[in-house]
């Protein structure tokens, strides 16, 4: 089945998930622990198993699991965004839709080109594609998990009723999802979003803190968006190189060439095979660390900008209510309503400002910590990979030179292969 491995990735996932979390310090409050230990890929749909462990009495059981689809996560996110009470909070960005388009297209091309390549090359490329598929899978589970963990670690959001339903309700959520769509309507959200930049920059800021934050976030957002795109390009180049090594190693391994090169062919083939493995791994590790980090914070910054937008709208409302009050006083008509309205607007604005300040401060801290962790891990991985690559090459060179060290060289090469 070329389209979807139909894999149950449980065990693999856990082992590979050591490179997890673009956010840190989540999921360490024992009162509510959430994770996604398992996921199933069926056709186009991914089914996540959301597992909760809790000491809170608000839940019916201390430990339970439910199956959820991507659309359920979106529903949860949207209901939180539309909740008036949370207007002063940074709502964790919704996880992006699982995108298997890339590897699926490559699988398709591979299937078409099967006739033109050797069996070894085909097998190798298929394995690489399956690994790529697995990497996408890994990524999507990770990002859905982080979304839930952000919620569970937020003192206000983790008490949300819909959040609890999401975690606990053991039936299909699709009915609720449909109702929500009818209530809020998707297009309204989009329309509103495109106006936010203008509004945020247009409104006169009274608070220094927010003035700084606004400038910073707008600038940072465009820079990080650019960096994300460039990082993605880098990763693609690494993948291309890995594919080239596959082709080269499969060609070199073919009998006619290899005989001619006598024993150097083994060395060269092994070099290329192992280099390709390492290149492929570099590509995926770099993806996970750097690119995912940048992508995630790009979305997070958008969420922070949304907060600023809501506050700016509240400020605009407050200013409008002031104008309305003045008008009412002039006309001596409906003054109490106008005064009431003005008070409400002021309260809302103050509440948003207070909560917003807290949120943005903790957001900065979170961002710094996450960058630090990922940059360190990325550097360590790069060093590890470069060391593996150089030891491979070193041994191969020694091997070619010292032909009397044959038996040792074989042993070393074998060990190295296992290490990779």
């Amino acid at each position, binding site marked *: 089945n070329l389209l979807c491995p139909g894999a149950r990735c449980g065990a693999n996932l856990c082992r590979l998930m050591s490179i997890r979390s673009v956010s840190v310090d989540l999921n360490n409050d024992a009162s509510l622990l959430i994770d996604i230990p398992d996921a199933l890929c069926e056709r186009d749909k991914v089914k996540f198993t959301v597992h909760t462990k809790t000491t809170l009495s608000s839940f019916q059981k201390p430990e339970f699991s439910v199956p959820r689809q991507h659309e359920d996560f979106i529903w949860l996110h949207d209901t939180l965004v539309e909740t008036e009470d949370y207007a002063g909070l940074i709502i964790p960005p919704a996880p992006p839709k699982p995108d298997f388009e890339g590897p699926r297209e490559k699988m398709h091309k591979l299937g078409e080109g099967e006739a033109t390549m050797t069996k*070894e090359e085909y*097998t*190798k490329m298929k*394995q690489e594609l399956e690994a790529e598929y697995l990497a996408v899978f890994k990524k999507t589970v990770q990002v859905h998990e982080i979304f839930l963990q952000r919620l569970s670690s937020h003192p206000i959001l983790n008490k949300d009723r819909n959040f609890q339903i999401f975690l606990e309700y053991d039936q299909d959520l699709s009915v609720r999802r449909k109702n929500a769509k009818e209530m809020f309507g998707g297009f309204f959200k989009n329309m509103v979003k495109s106006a936010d930049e203008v509004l945020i920059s247009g409104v006169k800021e009274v608070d220094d803190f927010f003035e700084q934050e606004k400038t*910073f976030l707008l600038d*940072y957002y465009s*820079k*990080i968006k*650019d*960096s994300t795109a*460039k*990082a993605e*390009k*880098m990763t693609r*180049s690494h993948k*291309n*190189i890995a594919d*080239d*090594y596959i*082709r*080269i190693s499969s*060609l070199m391994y*073919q*009998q*006619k*060439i290899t*005989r*001619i090169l*006598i*024993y*150097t062919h*083994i*060395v*060269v083939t092994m*070099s290329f095979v192992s*280099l390709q493995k390492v290149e492929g791994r570099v590509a995926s590790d770099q993806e996970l660390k750097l690119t995912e980090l940048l992508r995630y914070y790009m979305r997070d910054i958008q969420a922070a900008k949304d907060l600023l937008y809501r506050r700016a709208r509240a400020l605009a409302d407050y200013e409008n209510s002031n104008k309305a009050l003045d008008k009412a006083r002039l006309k001596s008509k409906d003054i109490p309503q106008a005064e009431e309205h003005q008070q409400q607007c002021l309260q809302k604005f103050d509440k948003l400002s207070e909560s917003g300040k807290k949120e943005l401060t903790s957001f*900065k801290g979170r961002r*710094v910590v996450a*960058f*630090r962790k990922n*940059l360190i891990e990325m*550097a360590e991985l*790069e*060093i590890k990979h*470069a*060391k593996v*690559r*150089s030891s491979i090459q070193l041994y191969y060179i020694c091997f*070619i*030179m*010292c*032909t*009397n060290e*044959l*038996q040792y060289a*074989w042993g070393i*090469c*074998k060990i190295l*292969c296992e290490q*990779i």
Partner: protein
Amino acid sequence: MADAARDPQQDDTGLLELEDGEDLFPEPGPGPALEESGPASLTTEDLSTNANGPKQASLFDDDPDDLFAEATEEVSLDSPDRDVLLSDGPSPAITPMTPPTSVITPRIGHAHDDMFTHSSFDEIEEEDGGDSFDIHISVSDPEKVGDGMNAYMAYKVTTKTSMSLFKLREFSVRRRFSDFLGLHSKLASKYLHIGYIVPPAPEKSIVGMTKVKVGKEDQSSNEFVEKRRSALERYLMRTVKHPILLKDPDVLQFLESSELPRAVSTQALSSAGLLRMVNKAADAVNKMTIKMNESDAWFEEKQQHFENLDVQLRKLHASVESLVLHRKELSMNMASFAKSAAMLGNSEDHTALSRALSQLAEVEEKIDQLQQDQANADFYFLSELLGDYVRLITAVKGVFDQRMKTWQKWQDSQMMLQKKREAEAKLQFNNKPDKLQQAKDEIKELEMKVQQGERDFEQISKTIRKEVGRFEKERVKDFKSTVIQYLETLLQTQQQMIKYWEAFLPEAKAIS
């Protein structure tokens, strides 16, 4: 080297040793790629442990046993010469490997190994006597001479040698590209038709040269000049490595004399050039029409071998070119990411993180430079080598074609002789004494011609056998040393990368 028993288990500490005559490379059947276990050579062996033929899927497994199973057999080819190599000692130096005592004889071939082995032994004897091969040529200092469309690049050709063939030990001359082409065309006209593999000269490039002439001092024209310089150097080294060509007076003149008559006939758009094209076309047609009765299986097999090699090398060359391209792309993408990361660092308001991001940008930039250098190495070592060999194989195939032509000539003479004899018989029958004498003379001439034709054919066949042997040897050495150089550059790149990332790590850790 006493026992011929082949040890099937590769984990053993015992080295595999084989008797000299034993065939290690049985030509496989039409089956799958890995099938090397010919019936003759593996009677005592447990085929299952070698896992050669059937297990195609396991080819690229992490389990290296499959790879090594073959490998161990092939590697022990060295066993006859192992003592020799041991005495030389392992040295990290790469260039140039002096051939006289260390002979790695590739056992490519079938039941007709005997013939091939003998000829290669001949070579060993040849090389042992006389001058040890010690000559090194370098092509350097490209200089533009003249202006506009008449401008050309002059290169300095320096020869360093201890051979008695030359007057001096070190000397240099200035040559231009057409001089190299002229040398090649002279050598080709002298030696190709008698079966010597004359190394092909680097290819002309009208586009490349025009850029240089016009005076564009940019990256691509510099790269072009460097590429050409390197190709010319390899060309000369290959030419002088050939023991016969080295002694050729044209070669000596090329290397030694300060003035060289300009080789006009090498111009692309000249009458000589057109004549060459016409001849090439004629040759191609002839090749198709000559149906040679190949009585010697060695030649048949070798031709097939070179045909296959041609195909494989071209594919490999294409893949390596793709690698070079992608690595250049990677380098570009890294550079642009580095700039972007630097801007992000500037934008970041947390000081330590900002510094770390700027450092990251610097690391990526440095690594980008490394990747560029690596791409160059990929190119010069692998890609150009493969390109050279694609052209060399064409030259080898050309030599086989010459043998066919020689055979054809011989056959033609024989046919003529036959006709003349028939004509003579007729004349005798019709009793025409004066014409008879003429016929008899012609027959005598033709008989000599036929004898000469046969001798030529034998000679060219013998020469080709020797040449192919020498070619295979050279190629092994060539690839081996190039591969080592390539791996060394890869190694250096990796070690440098380690240094850069290790310098970055404390910066990342310093974020608080």
